[in-house]
Every structure is written in C-alpha cells, then in structure tokens.
C-alpha cells in the first residue's frame, strides 16, 4: 500500500476543524511578547533625546523647542532599542501591528510642561 501513505493524514484532517482563522472577521489573538508598535506615556517624558539617538532607522524625532515627540509609524522596525534605553521608562511596546495604509503615517505627541522640583542642572 505504498501508494496511499497519505491516506491516513487526509482522512484525519477531513474530520477536524480547519487550522486557519477566518481573519479579519475573527480577530487575531496576540501573544504577550509580540512586538507591534511603540506607545509613549507623555507625562513622564523629559525630552532627553536618547531614543532618537538609539533608533537604528531614525524613526523617532524629538523636538525640544516645540515639545513634541514624533514617530514615523512605517519607519519603525520594532526593535525595542528605545524602550530599553529610556531613562524614565515612559515608552512601551504594545502588541498590535500598525494597520496597513496607502500613505505613510506619522504620529505627533505633545509633551506637557512639567513642574521642575529643583533648580535647572546645566
């Protein structure tokens, strides 16, 4: 019966439910560590610019005068270098991928003024 070796597998898969999801009707279940996109907690950011220096694809732009933190969503390669290097731990890696689009998306976040508790250092 060496012609029908596949028969066992085929019969078994006849009686099982399909291995694929009806995506996008059925939403995808994300894993805990998936690297999807970057989010910032604006209240903690001190505009030091370390994330801009460490980003390998130059997707983050920090503007001190305007007090904005900009990220090019399509340029980010989800490497997590910015999250690891931020001194205030205000950047987070969330699980959902950036949705595909026909134009390049840029997100601009406005950082509010913080009260300085001590005198300015340098």
């Amino acid at each position, binding site marked *: 019966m060496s012609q029908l070796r596949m028969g066992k597998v085929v019969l078994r898969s006849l009686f099982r439910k399909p291995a694929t999801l009806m995506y996008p009707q059925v939403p995808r279940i994300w894993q805990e560590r998936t690297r999807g996109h970057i989010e910032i907690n604006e209240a903690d950011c001190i505009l030091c610019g370390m994330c801009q220096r460490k980003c390998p*694809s130059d*997707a983050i732009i920090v503007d001190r005068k305007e007090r904005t933190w900009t990220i*090019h969503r*399509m*340029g980010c*390669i989800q490497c997590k270098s910015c999250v690891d290097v931020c001194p205030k731990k205000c950047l987070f890696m969330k699980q959902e991928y950036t949705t595909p689009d026909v134009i390049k998306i840029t997100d601009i976040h406005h950082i509010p003024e913080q009260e300085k508790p001590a005198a300015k250092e340098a």
Partner: protein
Amino acid sequence: MENRSYLVQEFHPLETGMIYETAKDRKAEGYRLVQICASVVPEGYELLYTYDLDHVLLNYKVTMPVDEEIMSITGVYWSAFVFENELQDLFDVKFKHMELNYGGNFYTTNEPHPWKPETQEVSSETEEEEKTTQEGDA
C-alpha cells in the same frame, strides 16, 4: 576533533605572483576553497583567500594596487568563478585567464563598479536612498 577550534585564526601574507602556486599546493593536499573576499585599504585592495581542511581554516592575505591584473585560480578550483566574478563586478579587480567570465554582467547594478574607491561618494548616496525606502516599507 578539537574543542573551540573556531577561535584559531591564522593569517599569512602572500605575494600576487604566488596566488596560483599556493592554490595548486593546497588542492594537492586536499583543501577546499571557502571564500575570496576583498576590502579597501589605503594601498589599494586587500584580498583574503580562505582554505579549509578538517574544520581548520587557513587564510592568505594579498595586498595589491587597484589596477593590477592577477591570476585567476579557476584553473585549479573551478568553483572560484562565482567569487571572482563578484569581485570583478563590484570592485573592478582584473583577472587573467578566467574560465567562466561573465564580463561584468554577473550582478546587475546601476553603475559599473559601485565599490571601487574613486566612486565612493556617488554610490553611498544611492545606498542611503535605497535604505530609507527599505525601512519605510518594513
């Protein structure tokens, strides 16, 4: 089988005239050709020939000026034609008596010899543009 033999690194200098003879000697002893690599140094090019026998590597370094013609080793190791054609296309290294010569058409590049030292500024701009579009699509 030695442990940690990958940490053994031997580099021997070699003259351009001795390339063919060294290749013949190594072939007779049963060595396998691993790679031919070129890098840009102030004196011109530095070629690295690597041979391997029983998991032990042997490297030869050849320093040559940019426009010198050197002997091809495809007469001894026929499979070296891939490495030599790549060097010919990217660095414009000239080879004598190459058995399978694509004549500069192995890689289809925009400009003839992108990594040759004189044309470095032009090609680095093209590489920057390619890279930003690549990151944008990621």
